[in-house]
């Protein structure tokens, strides 16, 4: 194969040529992988080849080693590990050689590929000489080789986990990198590469950050780099500081004053990319401190060993004025630009984080700024003052904020209608939303919305929904939180008199020509949903009237034929919003017997539409319609059976949708809804459902988060069909057993432990459903052989001492179900288990009522089982 030509063709503007070239590359790759990869690395290293083909060769090489998709990635790694050793050596040698190329693109490509190979090989203790040879490169004379090598080390640190490289080599890497950054290095490109490499290498420097001298040195080098004449180096150096702020928070105390000075100067004087990083440093410190303080506030377990240094609290007298200054640097049209991110936005965001961190202390520092600027003729000052106010509404106590809000509210309502500047109106509406979000609701003692001002607030918000899309969207948001605050207001809501008007205005917004801008239509439907969710019995007839309206809208989306892909996307988005809205309405009306009864007259029509929406086939719609169908099944009960023949194939499709795992998860949940609705009428569909669920469990392509709900779903099915579940018992139990074995012990981070607990809960819910399903059946004895293992699982997770409350409740319930169903057959097994003693006693004395109740049930069931 004439590889250079093919690679050139693969970048041709002529589609046919390009396709042809891609085809032959693919063919070659499939026929002879080692040969193909060798050819590519040969192209990359060859100084006589054109730069474009060298780059593309490197890129294809890289893609042969790594993929975003986890499954594919594992395959690629395996393939590389099994590849012929000679070929690999040759490829690697070529890659290393390319680092010395005079062509910068070739070097850069090679360094990325080297890092990928290292990512695969180093954990397997292969390519041991790599780091040594890279380090020797650093001492080479030509600057471009140094630069490429440092870049490679940076990529390598990104790819490889720290425990794979021993401390001695880490020390050498860090030394090389830090030398590259320091002022003694004359070449700017080398310094930049070294600074960027340090960003990735910081994760390797645990030991070095614990050593005072080494840490001082590292910090000095980074801080010096923030003063570099090159803007890229300054930016990279601040990125290092941001990373240090979260990774080594507890080591920062000696440096924090210097860092403040450096960041303050950068925020005020430096170019925006650098200033943004400087602000981010403080945002990141806020994140750290709120996390620590949250842990303090929660159950103090004693194993949080990072103390809070209250850097933010100490810094606010200087930090807050600095942030307030940034607020005045707005860009003209930032509210219309989805992708905008500037110093004013970053500064305001940081101000909000500071308020969350220090609470009341921020208020006196910000109020003078608000008072001074809010009435100024320059819109920038009014907007900055409003934004500052909105930013500090989360964190300080209501006692501190409510007096301010009471003064400001009327002013804000006037600004929202009268201010000539759209930017100010946008921020004002957003601030009103924040006021309602944090200071309105049953948790707040003194209401800020009263009979006296409620009417005015609503009138202004509804008026603003006719403003420009971005302002209207914020007004919808404010109304969302206004409604939310009346969530548990009781049988009579202050919103009742306005309900009709609010709904009408929101529907009008959804029909605006420009409703697709600034996600206005989405916001309008979301607010409508919240208004419905928070409505009371008084307005149930009005919610009911909404059913034919939304149904008609959904019907209208089905009209168009032969849509372009853009139109299809718009159609599917709108269908998603409408199905979502119907879901909320169905759930609301279905929750009370009287409204459910009236609602059900629309059920056939709505279900018909959902099926048509499925026929349009689009993932998001699929999910929203599926969610809505779950709510419908719950409301319809056994009557849902009549929809099953037509609906079943979509249910199956949903269960097969591995790629969009959310869709799969939602469908699994709907199977549960249908089980409870149909009970044994689901039997005809069980074979198909169980087959698919078991298939899903055994697949390693399916996102792990779907597996626990699948287990719970086994329980739903067993409970619905009773002893008919016998058919699937062996398969289900074997899947449950292997999952139980895997989830008895937990090792790993909090996230993994949380997942394991979710998994345990799913497994236990399955056991509960199966036991209860078989209760009172002559086939109960089929379960006896599984009892020892299940009790062992319960004992195992009890002994592990890392159950969360939900698992505890489900687990002790399973013990009761086992005793209840198996009775005397399991009496001696139960008495031998730890669960029936220590675990049960622990649960009986639990403060959690749900756990206690389950435990009392278990105690009763066990008493009966062993007394027979």
């Amino acid at each position, binding site marked *: 194969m004439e590889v250079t030509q093919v690679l050139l063709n693969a970048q041709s503007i002529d589609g046919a040529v390009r396709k042809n070239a891609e085809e032959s590359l693919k063919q070659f790759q499939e026929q002879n992988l080692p040969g193909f990869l060798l050819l590519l690395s040969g192209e990359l290293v060859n100084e006589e080849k054109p730069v474009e083909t060298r780059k593309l060769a490197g890129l294809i090489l890289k893609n042969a080693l790594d993929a975003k998709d986890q499954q594919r990635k594992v395959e690629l790694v395996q393939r590389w590990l099994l590849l012929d050793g000679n070929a690999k050596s040759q490829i690697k040698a070529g890659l290393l050689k390319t680092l010395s190329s005079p062509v910068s693109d070739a070097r850069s490509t090679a360094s990325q590929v080297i890092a990928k190979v290292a990512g695969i090989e180093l954990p397997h203790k292969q390519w041991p000489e790599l780091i040594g040879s890279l380090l020797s490169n650093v001492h080479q004379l030509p600057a471009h080789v140094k630069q490429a090598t440092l*870049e490679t080390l940076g990529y390598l640190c990104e790819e490889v986990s720290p425990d794979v490289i021993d401390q001695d080599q880490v020390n050498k890497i860090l030394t090389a990198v830090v030398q590259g950054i320091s002022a003694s290095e004359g070449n700017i490109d080398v310094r930049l590469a070294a600074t960027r*490499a340090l*960003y990735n290498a910081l994760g390797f420097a645990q030991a070095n950050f614990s050593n005072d001298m080494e840490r001082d040195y590292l910090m000095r080098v980074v801080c010096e780099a923030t003063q570099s004449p090159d803007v890229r180096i300054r*930016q*990279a150096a601040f*990125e290092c500081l*941001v990373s240090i702020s979260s990774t080594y928070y507890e080591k920062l105390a000696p440096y924090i004053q210097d860092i403040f000075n450096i960041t303050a100067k950068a925020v005020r004087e430096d170019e925006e*990319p650098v200033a*943004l*990083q400087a602000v981010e440093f403080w945002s990141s410190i806020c994140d750290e401190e709120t996390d620590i303080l949250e842990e303090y506030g929660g159950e103090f377990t004693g194993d949080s060993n990072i103390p809070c240094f209250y850097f933010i609290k100490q810094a606010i007298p200087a930090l807050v004025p600095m942030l307030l200054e940034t607020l005045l640097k707005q860009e003209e049209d930032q509210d219309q630009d989805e992708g905008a*991110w500037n110093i004013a*936005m*970053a500064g305001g*965001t940081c101000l909000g984080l500071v308020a969350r961190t220090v609470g009341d202390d921020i208020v006196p520092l910000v109020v003078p700024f608000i008072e001074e600027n809010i009435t100024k003729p320059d819109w920038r000052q009014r907007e900055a003052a409003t934004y500052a106010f909105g930013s500090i509404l989360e964190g300080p106590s209501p006692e501190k904020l409510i007096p301010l809000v009471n003064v400001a509210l009327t002013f804000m309502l006037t600004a929202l209608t009268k201010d000539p500047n759209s930017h100010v109106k*946008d*921020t004002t509406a*957003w601030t009103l939303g924040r006021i309602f*979000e944090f200071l309105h609701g049953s948790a707040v003692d003194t209401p800020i919305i009263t009979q006296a001002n409620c009417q005015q607030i609503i009138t202004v918000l509804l008026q603003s929904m006719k403003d420009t899309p971005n302002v209207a969207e*914020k007004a919808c*948001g404010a109304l*969302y939180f206004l409604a939310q605050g009346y969530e548990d207001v009781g049988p009579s809501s202050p919103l009742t008199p306005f309900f009709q008007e609010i709904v009408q205005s929101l529907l009008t917004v959804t029909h605006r020509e420009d409703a697709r801008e600034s996600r206005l239509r989405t916001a309008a*439907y*979301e607010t409508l*949903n*919240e208004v419905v*969710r928070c409505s009371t019995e008084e307005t149930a007839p009005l919610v009911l009237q909404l059913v034919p309206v939304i149904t008609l809208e959904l019907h209208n989306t089905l009209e168009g034929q032969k849509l372009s892909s853009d139109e299809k996307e718009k159609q599917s988005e709108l269908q*998603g919003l409408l199905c*979502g809205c119907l*879901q*909320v309405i169905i*759930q609301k009306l279905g929750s009370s017997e009287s409204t459910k009864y009236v609602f059900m007259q629309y059920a056939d029509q709505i279900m018909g539409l959902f099926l048509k929406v499925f026929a349009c086939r689009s993932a998001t719609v699929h999910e*929203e319609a599926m*969610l809505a169908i779950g*709510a419908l099944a*719950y409301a319809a009960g056994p009557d849902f059976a009549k929809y099953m023949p037509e609906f079943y194939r979509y249910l199956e499709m949903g269960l097969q949708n591995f790629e969009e795992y*959310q869709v799969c998860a*939602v469908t699994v*949940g709907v199977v*549960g*809804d249908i089980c*409870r609705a149909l009970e044994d009428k689901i039997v005809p569909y069980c074979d198909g459902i169980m087959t698919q669920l078991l298939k899903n469990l055994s697949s390693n392509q399916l996102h792990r988060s779907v597996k626990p709900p699948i287990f*719970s779903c086994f*329980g*739903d099915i067993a*409970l619905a069909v009773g002893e008919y579940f016998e058919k699937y018992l062996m398969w289900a139990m074997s899947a449950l057993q292997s999952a139980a074995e895997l989830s008895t012990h937990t090792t790993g981070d909090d996230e993994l432990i949380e997942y394991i607990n979710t998994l345990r809960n799913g497994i236990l*819910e399955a056991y*509960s*459903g199966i036991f*209860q*399903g078989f*209760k*009172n059946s002559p086939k109960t004895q089929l379960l006896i052989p599984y009892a020892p293992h299940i009790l062992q699982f319960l004992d195992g997770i009890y002994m592990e001492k890392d159950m969360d409350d939900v698992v505890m409740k489900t687990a002790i*319930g399973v013990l*009761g179900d086992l005793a209840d169903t198996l009775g005397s057959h399991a009496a001696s097994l139960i008495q031998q288990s730890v669960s029936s003693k220590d675990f049960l006693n622990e649960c009986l004395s639990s403060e959690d009522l749900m756990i206690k109740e389950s435990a*009392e*049930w278990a105690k*009763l069931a066990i*008493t*009966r089982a062993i*007394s027979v």
Partner: protein
Amino acid sequence: MAPHDLRRPFKRAAISDQQKRRDLSLLRQAQNRRDAQQQARCLASSILSLQSSAPESEPEQSDIEIETEHDSEDLSKDLDVRRVSKLRGPEVRKWFARQLMLPEWMIDVPDRLSQDWYVLARPAGKRCFVVSSNGTTVSRQRNGSILHYFPSALPAGAKTRDGSGSAQSYCILDCIFHESDQTYYVIDMVCWNGYSLYDCTAEFRFYWLNSKLEESGACNVPSHYHKFRFSAVPVYNCDQTGLYAAYSGAVPYVKDGLLFYNKHAHYQSGNTPLVLVWKDENCSQYVIDTDGKGEIPSQQQVVLELQDDGKLVTSDDPPVLFCCLDGDIIEKSGLQSGNLLRFAIGDGGLSFVDGKLENADLIYLGKSNRARAFADSYSKVIFQFMVRHSPLKIDDLLASINSPDDQEKIPSDIEMVG
């Protein structure tokens, strides 16, 4: 290496409404799953569907009845929900009528009285099942008829504003309604807050009864949501002190004998020898059976069932044979198998050999009242007979506890003399 993106959410709520919809769906599903699970755990939940009928007008019941009913063969001893849920109207009444546990009469002192038995002073009044579910409470008498239909503080017993009457919850209590203080005295707990205690020992049931009843607020004075007061009856270990306390201790109600519960016995529908009733004049106004006019007949009367082969038997399972009627007499008098016949016990009385009934001097009085469903039980006939001739006295009971060989005592029937 490109600079790292540091944009943070700007003027945006942290959570999307779509995510909220998903989360709320999951929440609803979890709640529904919990309810379904709870319903499965609570055996008798389908009783709920039986509770909807309004109070029926019922024939008057005499205050005190001597326990005479027996189980019909096709009744399972447990609460079979699947079957019960299919019952309607009068069948419901019949079903409830068969659920009460009926004590035998104490005609001899059981073994290990002080170790294995509880004693309590039985309140005088209407024996009934009190069932709370779905926000109402219904009390049903032994024949299944409704006594009261009322709100109570029992779990699921009233439609309170906080909606605490969850659909799955219900209670079944074995009570005696005491007219003068309008109080339900709870003598046993069959189901509590959805959980069946049928298969639990008396020891456990009484423990549960004492801790839960008070906790529920059912013992509080009546109020809008709680029309009648409930009260637990003091239960004693049947040692000397306990027996004496139950016999002579002051209680706020009129006593009608003593009830003895075997600690290890489960709640069981119908007659059981593991619960016993005993009376004397001191602790009951109704020791000797009265006739329809409320007077004590000069001769003891018994009701027996006529079988195919002319045998006259009691309601026990297996039935105890009293004597045989001549085929001629049956034919002449037009009696049929299954008829309940009333007899007086003549001067010949009852005679026993080795503790077994040997001979009975019966005088035929006629067919029994049509309202009677069952013949007398053996223990009732014997107890009544003993009361008239050689009663089992409280001192005998106390003495049996006192006797040093209490634990080894061999069971023996008391000698009867005609």
